[in-house]
């Protein structure tokens, strides 16, 4: 039972860690590159405009997709590793 509880806590911590890493990336691409840091990326030209514009209109969306699939894949694996998956 004690071991179970320890295991459960480790699983939850692993989940939280994964969420935090993902949300940091999520923040950087949208609020960072797409909005606040756009002036800093102004020198990098992309098709008639700059990289910040690309992140705001396309790059962030593509990143979100990768993030969700990565999270789903990693968590579904963690479920099995910690033995908390549905049979």
């Amino acid at each position, binding site marked *: 039972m004690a071991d179970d509880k320890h295991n*459960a806590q480790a*699983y*939850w911590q692993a*989940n939280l860690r*994964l*969420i935090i890493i*993902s*949300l940091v990336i*999520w923040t950087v691409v*949208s*609020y960072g590159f*797409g*909005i*606040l840091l*756009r*002036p800093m990326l102004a020198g990098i030209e*992309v*098709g*008639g*405009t*700059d990289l*910040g*514009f*690309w992140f*705001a*209109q*396309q790059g*962030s*969306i*593509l990143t*979100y*997709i990768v*993030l*969700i*699939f990565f*999270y*789903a894949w990693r*968590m*579904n694996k963690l*479920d099995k590793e910690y*033995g*908390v*998956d*549905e049979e």
Partner: protein
Amino acid sequence: MSQFAINMIFVVGSFALYIAIAIWARAGSTKEFYVAGGGVHPVMNGMATAADWMSAASFISMAGLISVGGYANSTYLMGWTGGYVLLAMLLAPYLRKFGKFTVPDFIGDRFYSSGARLVAVACLIIASVTYVIGQMTGAGVAFSRFLEVSSDMGLIIAAVVVFMYAVLGGMKGITYTQVAQYVVLIVAYTIPAVFISLQLTDTLLPPIGLFSEHTQSGVPLLQKLDEVVRELGFVDYTADVDNKLNMVLFTLSLMIGTAGLPHVIIRFFTVPKVADARWSAGWALVFIAILYLTAPAVASMARLNLMTTIYPAGPTADAIQYAERPDWIKNWEKTGLIKFEDLNGDGRVQLYNHTPQFAEKAAERGWKGNELTVNNDILVLANPEIANLPGWVVGLIAAGGLAAALSTAAGLLLAISSAVSHDLIKGSINPNISEKGELRAARISMGVAIVVATYLGMNPPGFAAQTVALAFGIAAASIFPALMMGIFSKRINSKGAICGMLAGLISTCTYIFLYQGWFFIPGTASFENIPANWFFGISPLSFGAVGALINFTVAFVVSAVTEKPPVHIQDLVESVRFPRGAGTAVDH
């Protein structure tokens, strides 16, 4: 064959398909009415979620707003997709594990209080009804054009169709019809975009075309567009914005709101397993992204095409003669959504930005003000006509726009009706209500919601996408924080949650009503809705993120000074965090 006949074939044909599916999958029991028996595959569920999600706001209105606002309105693109990341990581799997029907179910159980449940019902209804207003606005625009009636008449026709459609089937009907609607709307959205991308940039894929060379002039498309609009006194299409605080808060409101909207969350109750809830969010975003990556291309290309139509020899030469205006302008004039006034009496159509900075240049050219007013919401629908595409493409986009409005309105009405019949009546007022009585209450509440939304849709608080953005603000400020704290904190108790939700809801609604009219009733706004009047430059559209922060803060403070939740509630929180042992969604 006339364009009207072609439109009718596409619209009626697609409707016949949806209704046939709805009848085929007609809901029998209450459980099927709400969650389709819990057996929908993640890819199918993702597609249905995408149709449910992408409403008139995404399909009809969003590209128009980006087209006018340029970079500044990228907020819609990031905001309405980024929320899925929050959903997939912070809500969907745990709510699926919890395994009940509705959002108030979770809030009521987690915060062990029928008070919390009632507050959640109120938040849900306010957010959803606001959202339906936006849908009705968009559907009204589409119907008015394709049936060639006034926009108010279009709105009433839309209300009748949505009502019949939503009342007929429940969730199950909706899940399969929504897969069909997704296919219709995505084909309708991308085909004209591909044609236009080929015309302007020789590039097959519009998202790539957006960053490609404009074939005719040999400079990049966006650079060309910047040059044209600058010449006419508009801000550069790709120009950066000054008020970054507002841009950040607006994006955040849309993201949090996405994750707090009950009709989207309810989708994740319908997958078989917790693991599938995570995949479903990913698939939903893939299907959504197909439209969202196309939209910015549509926006910029339509703007350029519009300017080229008005100034065929370039922005420095004369505008077209009103008498020689193309048919699409004549058609849209009938709906009242395009207006022309010959201010300088030269018989030409000057479309430009009449600002003090541009006054000198305008005087030089003999212009006395902007003469053509184009409603943003028509841009996507008029897009194929502006680009001279064949009639069947115009018919297709009519069917697609209506599919988008209809599918979302139906999903929202379902969320409203289940909140009233299941959470309010069965959960609080009359627990012994029969299944039949519950279904009847569900249908009556749908009817009431449509009537209210139609009335307010006649004088909407903004363009379809803006009205919808207000709904997101309300959901962001009230529902999302309560759900998230319910899962990630064992310490938040019922008092904290109730105070938090009320604080978030009331502060956000008050801020919105101050600028947009009390309860959206026209003419009752306390302040004119202009940036100079906003507190710290925060627009009513962006306030949801502030409301969410207020909600979190109040809930933490109140919980910290009151008692801990009971042990069985702490165990419940523990149990939703682990997938093992999740059955299918259950009734009480």
